[in-house]
């Protein structure tokens, strides 16, 4: 009896909370009109809207809530295909991280876009893209929630200078799978990345923005200095 009471209580709370919460969240993303202007930077490759087709990049209708690399008929990079298989879903959080720095988020993506660095610009762009996906204010259970959770790293973490000797020791753990010679069959190469890209990628795993259970586990227990040490070591690896 006590169990049933508790279930009912939880359910009632969820129902009561849902509509208000989602409407609030949807309003939070950004300025969609301004986002439409920013989309000018993307429209050379991507189409969006009722007539949209795949072009140099895939069409972006319905991107929210979709598994990565899932538009039929588009030839994705190996790396985005892999991310999709590993379970990457495009949510506000993951799209934000991708648009901020595509190559850091999915090394090997064919999207030759350097990234939209300004947080407000990204929010506005995503608010515009969001209009072409199922909207939470219309469909309460639709992905995504518009929860703001940016994968940003404070400057002091990015500025950490890693100890290459520590990095050399820690790297032993990476090199059981990732080959020092840069071979990438089955498992991607991690040698000679720019340090900042390496640090951002590892923190993206640590925050579970990038999918993959092994990497989430490995990055999850690395401290900030340890990630910096690895970045310093792999950036200079010449083997």
């Amino acid at each position, binding site marked *: 009896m006590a169990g049933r009471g508790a279930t009912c209580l939880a359910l009632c709370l969820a129902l009561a909370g849902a509509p208000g919460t989602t409407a609030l969240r949807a309003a939070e993303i950004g300025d969609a009109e301004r986002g439409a202007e920013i989309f000018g930077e993307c429209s050379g490759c991507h189409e969006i809207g009722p007539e949209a087709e795949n072009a140099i990049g895939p069409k972006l209708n319905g991107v929210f809530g979709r598994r990565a690399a899932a538009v039929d008929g588009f030839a994705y990079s190996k790396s985005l295909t892999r991310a999709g298989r590993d*379970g990457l879903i495009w949510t506000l959080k993951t799209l934000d991280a991708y648009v901020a720095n595509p190559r850091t988020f999915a090394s090997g993506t064919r999207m030759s876009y350097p990234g939209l660095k300004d947080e407000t610009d990204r929010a506005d762009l995503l608010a515009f893209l969001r209009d072409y996906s199922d909207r939470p204010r219309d469909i309460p259970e639709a992905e995504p929630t518009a929860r703001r959770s940016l994968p940003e790293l404070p400057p002091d973490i990015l500025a950490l200078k890693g100890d290459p000797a*520590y990095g050399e020791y*820690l790297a032993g753990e990476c090199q*059981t799978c990732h*080959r020092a010679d840069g071979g990438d069959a*089955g498992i991607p190469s991690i040698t000679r990345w720019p340090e900042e890209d390496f640090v951002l990628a590892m923190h993206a795993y640590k925050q579970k923005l990038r999918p993959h259970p*092994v990497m989430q*586990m490995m990055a999850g*227990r690395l401290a900030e200095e340890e990630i910096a040490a690895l970045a310093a070591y792999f950036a200079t690896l010449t083997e």
Partner: protein
Amino acid sequence: MTMQRRQFLGTMAAAGAVLGAPAVFGQAKPRVVVIGGGAGGATCARYIARDSEGAIDVILVEPSEVYYTCFFSNLYLGGFRDFESLGHRYDKLASDHGITLARDMAAGVDRDAGTVTLAGGEMLFYDRLVIAPGIDFADGSVPGWDLSKAEIMPHAYKAGPQTQLLKAQVEAMPEGGTFCMIAPPNPYRCPPGPYERISMVAHLLTQANPSAKILLVDPKEKYSKQGLFEEGWQRHYSGMITRIGPDFGGDKVEVRPEAMEVVIDGEVERVDVCNVIPGQRAGAIAEAAGVTDDTGWVPVNPHSMASRADPKVFVLGDASAQGDMPKSGFAANSQAKVAAMVIRAELSGSKAFPAKYSNTCWSLIATDDGVKVGASYEATDEKIASVDSFISQTGEDAALRKATYEESLGWYAGITADIFG
């Protein structure tokens, strides 16, 4: 527990005091002798030699010229790899890192004198000794079986001619015949290994001899990745595999090799192939060195992989009793890097760092149906303790399973390059 930590730190400090000595007095370089050229020993030798850049002499004692990895040998049984692809030479360890190869068996260790005696009679002095001999089989584990019967009922649990023999036997099975495996009790090398092997034999038989049966006799109630294997067997090899656990006498088994009979809790079964994987203990040289305990394994300091009995003797991989890590090639490789870091710190004054360990075991169930399990670990004073883990899920889609298999191929290329250069 605090005592042990203090002992460890004390060892490090004492080593630091000795460090300067060779340079100051112009004595010979410090020397590390490594017994065993597998995932633990060869990795440790390579990392010490590579990272010390000639400051430490490293001698690798290993009788074989070519090492065949036990990991992935099941894929050879299933027809997914050829035998040669499992073989790796030691040449690069010598040419790239200056490691001295002693092609011989280690016959004895005198820890008081700090020497290893080889079967050929040569004696090697060491400053630090690494013992990584893998497993040997426990006497009397399966009544009726001992090593002299391995030509009839192969163990195939050390890769090499035994693996080839088992495959030839499976291929020669009569139509509708029975393949039997006696699975080992805990603890043993490669926890998912016997069950991946069942999968690979089933794969082979499904193609060549589809009416054949597989009988898995198992003394354990549960085993690694059980849900994943059972789901896969149901999907790919329905009706072929019968497992007899301890509730039906799987723990009361004896074999009669000459008659090709298996007696399970008094019931006699005639079989066509019998793969006996007996109970295990540390490779014999560990016992000869006097570092094993009465379980047959070697207790080690989780912070360093040094033997609890002797801080100058490091024991890696399957032979060690360290806590939560499975006995796997991945684990041995991981432990080797911690030991190499500690040994370099003790002998050449390089920086010491906290121990970190990890493991992932991939298994292949059928074509493009790969699964994995893994964990990361840290050292406590008591044991190597698991801090985080993951496992493949039942019901995963085919694309993910294929990606997992492809990832395992990448891992094999990665770890063998990491071990052998």
